[in-house]
């Protein structure tokens, strides 16, 4: 299966400090790339920032226990715990075929501003920093487990991080109102679950660096359960958003079957961000220029 993008490192943080460390890690990578100067006690000058960040990451999760049960035999039964094992892609720089991410002029302008904010050590406030639902596909890219819960008329994706929730209504007539995560409607194409998400309440950051998506973006996921040397959930994402991209583009992810990760750790970022002085003061509001598209 094709892997897309630039692999920089794994998330190593946990619990309540996770939000702050995202920005710190990003700023550190940017500063290494920009300055190429040794940090006190840090890596040597000229070190590859991608490698440095990767080295910060935790070891991969322990292997699936030998006595772990397989997922349900029914290919349309996706119930259970899944985990994004591949290293987090901070910025998706290519599509699944190796072509550069097709930013249009507006997309390039936004990306230049966001990358510069990281290099300057002043990352922008975004949904993640505020502890709001981060939208898709960011939510599914994180190296945290999620549960799929299926009932007669819907499929729920319940995430450990951000206590995120994506509800896929299988009946379009029951589609939920627009939301941070968008409104998702699903159908089966053979044994592939096709999820179409639109109706984003606000613009979305596609990845951690900030590849943009507008409120009017449409995200399609084709999800299927596959047995390789182990069970995975394959997910092909396609983003259509003329506001920021010259064409629809696709990338692929895979999630390992991890029934040993069914029990979640607690994630309660609101206890920090909801406080009057709870926001990281190094984060700044993102400026917008008058000629930018109406996101």
């Amino acid at each position, binding site marked *: 299966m094709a892997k897309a993008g630039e692999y920089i490192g794994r998330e190593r943080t946990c619990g309540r400090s996770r939000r702050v460390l995202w920005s710190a890690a990003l700023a550190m990578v940017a500063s290494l790339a920009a300055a190429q100067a040794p940090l006190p006690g840090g890596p040597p000058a000229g070190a590859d920032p991608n490698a440095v960040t990767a080295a910060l990451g935790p070891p991969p999760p322990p292997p699936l226990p030998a006595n772990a*049960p397989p997922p349900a035999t029914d290919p349309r039964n996706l119930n259970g715990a899944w985990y994004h094992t591949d290293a987090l892609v901070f910025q998706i720089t290519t599509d699944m075929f190796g072509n550069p991410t097709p930013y249009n002029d507006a997309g390039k302008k936004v990306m230049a501003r966001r990358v510069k904010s990281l290099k300057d050590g002043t990352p922008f406030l975004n949904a993640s920093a505020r502890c709001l639902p981060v939208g898709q596909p960011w939510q599914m890219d994180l190296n945290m487990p999620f549960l799929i819960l299926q009932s007669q008329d819907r499929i729920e994706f319940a995430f450990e991080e951000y206590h995120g929730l994506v509800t896929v209504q299988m009946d379009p007539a029951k589609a939920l109102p627009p939301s941070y995560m968008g409104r998702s409607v699903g159908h089966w194409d053979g044994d592939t679950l096709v999820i179409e998400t639109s109706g984003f309440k606000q613009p979305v950051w596609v990845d951690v660096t900030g590849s943009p998506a507008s409120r009017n973006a449409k995200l399609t996921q084709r999800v299927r359960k596959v047995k390789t040397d182990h069970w995975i959930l394959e997910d092909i994402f396609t983003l259509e958003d003329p506001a920021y991209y010259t064409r629809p583009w696709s990338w692929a992810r895979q999630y390992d079957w991890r029934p040993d990760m069914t029990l979640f*750790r607690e994630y309660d970022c609101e206890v920090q961000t909801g406080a009057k002085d709870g926001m990281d003061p190094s984060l700044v509001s993102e400026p917008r220029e008058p000629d930018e598209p109406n996101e």
Partner: protein
Amino acid sequence: MLSLAVSASATAAAEPANLEGMWKIEAPQMAFRPEGGVVPFTAAGRKRYQDNKRALAEKRLGDFDFATARCASPGLPRLMLTPQRFRIWQREGIILMQFEWNRLLRQIDMGGLVSPQIRVVSGPGPVVSEEALVGRSTPISRGHWEGDTLVVTSEGFADNTLIDNLVPHGYDLKLTEHLRLRGPDVLEDRIRIEDPATFSRAWDTVVTYRRVADEAFAENVCLDSLPVNR
């Protein structure tokens, strides 16, 4: 989707009761009503309670009630007072309560899950699990069936949440819940609350819920209701 229904029925058949479905508290209430009428505070517990009352009167919610002031998780047992809906999912080895409020999830480990991964904090000294290091507002509960009653115990709390809107607790809080169907559409949760630092003895309270239509939750984001985020 047929196979999913089969899966859910199979789970239900293996257990003495099927609690699956959507539930909503019968009588919304801010505080638990203790059987016997009074919460048996210790002196220290009563002082914290009075402090909380004073802070509430002075509108200093941020001093003691992080759920209301910040949208932090209310934790247990306060979550069971939610005036909004929650959905129960029964699956192999686990029962989940999915709360409408702020998308929270409560997990009850019924045993039999494959070797739950122990995530560790490493560094100098002995390796310890995160769970052992830091209490939680909503610990992983442990459950088992006694006839048609689901018995659930919860321990390993942090001390920065409340029993309800005012009653405090400490790290040694222990909850024992007995959940049972009083009828096809009425769920009872009998909760025993123990915390020697806060209460002079165990005390009990009962909350009931009524089954409601099983419809998906619209996205619920508590932070949107805070003035700082409007």
